């Protein structure tokens, strides 16, 4: 871990990173206070037809939710009305076994399947378009402009991604930052699930979150590192402390917990910014400008209230000034407002 931290620091220094430790006066925090819609699980009906939602993404004005429990994909409109559900468990074409990752690109829904180790592309009405085999454990991925899948390589030394073209050909892509290189000479250490999160912005850049160190890395279209920034310490420390406490508690139960990660999820907002879902005190998310990497936090009020759903969200989406939170018991929409000064 020490080597890893040092590597991350060297990377930051080499790229002349500007750690935005301060909070910009021009961008006051946003507050998610007012609940404007919700769709919660109910025994009486199937209004929230998901058991273990894991990701929520935007497909235009549609909310797409992946359910890893039932291997289904559910689509909702912005008022949280259910539009369509598709998917079933299995290993056959179009079937899912562990819908863990979700990317919406070019009008299609790409589902990363844990057990089948493949990425399946569907139309919004659930028609299978194509499938790409990964031949390794699923990690975060983005979809390139030509339909290629940029999949975070689970191991390897130099390239962070494997690009799998629609015709199945593969090539390495993206300089693997020092902090994400294998820690041993034999390459034993692998990239763990959630350890690296990636997405692609409309300008073609690929953004990577080193989710252990809290470092954002921007790659240009050629795969070279353009910019790195470490997330502010005020954001990271509460997350790390909470994870350390959790690891201690579980250790007392005889469990060995792997190092924790910073963000629950990384997604694209409707206006092309990065959205990190976190649980750092009252901060539930951070919106990051893709060009400058300046962060703006989204908070919830202190104490209990309907906004607790945002705290325990497994994934978030931001469309305009509406924050959508999906939890294991429902889907919630909050309107965001700038925090009052003082």
């Amino acid at each position, binding site marked *: 871990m020490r080597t890893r931290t040092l590597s991350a620091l060297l990377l930051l220094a080499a790229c002349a990173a500007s750690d935005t430790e301060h909070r910009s006066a021009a961008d006051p925090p946003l507050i998610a206070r007012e609940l404007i819609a919700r769709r919660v699980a109910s025994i009486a009906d199937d209004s929230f037809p998901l058991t273990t939602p894991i990701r929520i993404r935007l497909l235009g004005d549609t909310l797409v939710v992946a359910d890893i429990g039932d291997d289904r994909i559910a689509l909702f409109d912005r008022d949280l009305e259910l539009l369509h559900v598709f998917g079933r468990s299995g290993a056959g074409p179009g079937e899912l076994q562990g819908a863990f990752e979700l990317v919406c690109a070019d009008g299609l829904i790409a589902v990363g399947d844990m057990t089948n180790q493949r990425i399946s592309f569907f139309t919004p009405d659930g028609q299978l378009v194509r499938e790409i085999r990964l031949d390794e454990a699923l990690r975060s991925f983005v979809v390139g402009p030509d339909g290629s899948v940029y999949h975070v390589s689970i191991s390897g030394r130099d390239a962070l991604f494997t690009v799998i073209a629609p015709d199945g050909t593969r090539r390495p892509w993206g300089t693997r930052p020092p902090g994400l290189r294998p820690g041993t000479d034999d390459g034993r250490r692998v990239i763990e*699930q959630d350890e690296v999160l990636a997405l692609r912005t409309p300008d073609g850049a690929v953004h990577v979150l080193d989710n252990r160190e809290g470092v954002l890395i921007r790659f240009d279209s050629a795969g070279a590192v353009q910019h790195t920034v470490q997330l502010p310490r005020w954001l990271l420390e509460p997350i790390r402390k909470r994870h350390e406490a959790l690891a201690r*508690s579980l250790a007392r139960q005889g469990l060995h917990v792997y190092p*924790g990660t910073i963000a629950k999820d990384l997604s694209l907002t409707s206006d092309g910014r990065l959205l990190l879902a976190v649980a750092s005190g009252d901060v539930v998310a951070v919106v990051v400008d893709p060009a400058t990497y300046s962060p703006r936090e989204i908070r919830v009020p202190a104490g209990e209230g309907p906004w607790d759903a945002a705290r325990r969200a497994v994934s978030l989406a931001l469309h305009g000034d509406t924050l959508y939170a999906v939890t294991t018991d429902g889907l919630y929409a909050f309107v965001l407002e700038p925090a009052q000064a003082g």
Partner: protein
Amino acid sequence: MRHSSITGSVPALALVLAFAAAAWADCAPYISTGINDPPGVGTLIGTETRTEVVRETIEIVVSGSGSGAGGSVKRTITRETTRSYQVGTYLMSDGSRVRVDCSTYRYI
């Protein structure tokens, strides 16, 4: 249960005479923090099987022989042991995820 696999290798353990043993253990469907800690319940949402090859090099000395020749001969024996264990991903009640080594994997 979601399941996938990863293979990797552990470097040679030169001159390590202790043999390792590993036991397979499935991940529990749920985990929980203790009653004295803030409540935290995790639901298993996926597993990955890790396969490791541990190379053990043992040096032995053979003294004398039945043919009457004296002296001793050093022999090096390399043994490869494959062992597997599971890493489980749990979705916690606060929406975060933790990964747990589900094995009873330990050197004896």
